[in-house]
């Protein structure tokens, strides 16, 4: 019954939206430019809109769920960079913690034409995802299509949307150091920075590394002398000592979302 009603909605809304709809969401492929120059990267993005009450997932989905996956079907010589994941939200579904997105989420992707590219191109890809609410999980997918032609730089109507989306992508942090030590199932995290305005106690913290930190409780840093520290439970599936941990730090205590990585010596 659920599957049937989704199909019906899909048939109706595909006429109303350019974006293809399935699995309680719709997705399309947008570009900041309507044109390309041979050999020069073009900033594009996959835009997904999840129905109210539903969510889809981050690169680290947490205890359940699934990272969205994109596959490209590009002409020879064209390449697409990795799909970038913006800062997620932390939520709990049926008692299990997850990380993901509600409403609109935009995943930037850099597209690079070959030096020999010319003319008008129709590029294709496919994104598949999982959407869940408290009661159900449904799969979704959309064919992605982008028409772009060779020519001088020309902003598309999506240029601001793509630019704004890029500001939500965590950037590798300079002048911030993460240290991790382990004791009896607990992880002691410590952040040091000489950035004057840096304040992770006013930030949301998300573990990029899967199966490292117990996702049940949010990570909270507190000022501890000249550094900030947090104690979190180790993920129950992390049996060996942790070798690496990447955190996303986002919110009021940083100018822009950052990513910081610790590697065991």
């Amino acid at each position, binding site marked *: 019954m659920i599957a049937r009603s989704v199909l019906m909605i899909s048939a109706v809304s595909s006429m109303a939206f350019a974006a293809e709809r399935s699995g309680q969401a719709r997705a399309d492929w947008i570009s900041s430019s309507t044109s390309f120059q041979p050999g020069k990267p073009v900033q594009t993005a996959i835009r997904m809109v999840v129905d109210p009450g539903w969510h889809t997932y981050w690169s680290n989905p947490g205890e359940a769920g*699934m990272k969205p996956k994109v596959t490209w079907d590009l002409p020879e010589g064209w390449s697409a960079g990795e799909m970038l994941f913006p800062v997620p939200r932390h939520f709990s579904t049926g008692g299990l913690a997850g990380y993901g997105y509600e409403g609109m989420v935009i995943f930037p992707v850099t597209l690079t034409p070959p030096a020999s590219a010319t003319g008008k191109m129709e590029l294709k890809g496919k994104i598949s995802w999982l959407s869940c609410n408290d009661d159900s999980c449904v799969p979704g997918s959309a064919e992605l299509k982008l028409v772009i032609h060779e020519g001088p730089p020309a902003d598309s109507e999506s240029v601001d949307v793509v630019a704004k989306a890029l500001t939500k992508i965590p950037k590798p942090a300079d002048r911030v150091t993460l240290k991790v030590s382990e004791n009896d199932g607990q992880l002691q995290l410590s952040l040091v920075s000489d950035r004057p305005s840096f304040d992770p106690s006013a930030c949301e913290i998300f573990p990029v590394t899967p199966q490292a930190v117990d996702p049940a409780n949010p990570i909270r840093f507190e000022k501890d002398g000249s550094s900030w520290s947090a104690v979190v439970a180790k993920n129950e599936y992390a049996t060996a000592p942790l070798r690496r941990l990447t955190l996303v730090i986002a919110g009021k205590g940083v100018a822009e979302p950052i990513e910081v990585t610790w590697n065991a010596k």
Partner: protein
Amino acid sequence: MMKLIPFVAIAGAFALATAHAQEIGKPAPDFTAKNTKGEEVALSTLKGKIVVLEWANFDCPFSKKHYTSGNLPKLQESYAGKDVVWLTVNSSAEGKQGYLDPSKAQEVVSEKGNKATHYLLDPAGELGKAYDAKVTPHLFIIDAKGTLVYNGAIDSLGTTEVADIEKADKLFVKALDAVIAGQPVENAKNQPYGCTVKY
């Protein structure tokens, strides 16, 4: 730092209180649950047999992957021939995805090709919570002595694509083959993938 201590103490106490039931190497929690024919199935009566618990929700894309491909039905059938008792458990609450009305459950279970020894209906979620079943599919193995020896994923590739079944590391099958052979299970606890159990 001082401020953090009470929090840690509370978190530690909580972990102790909940980490009772599903520990590898400990006796598997006993249970009684009804199958689709309305018969009671009790773990205590299955001593001496290897028991598999498989949490399923036929409408969850991850369970679907392993049913439409025939992967789970094939495993259920082949291990039945090796004297394994296979219990598929449905812990979906009434009104939630995957819930089956007891009067129609047997029909749906046959239609989906499920070949488990018993398909257990657990709409109150008691069995699911006793084992801390998190997702569908989530697999547990209990050895002939009643000890929990596996708690984890069906395989290593947490996608909804049938084509990935062949490519995946078959974690559960390896574990079950080891248990049947009387060997220790190498990766006895790992993170299962899937939809949350719809308690």
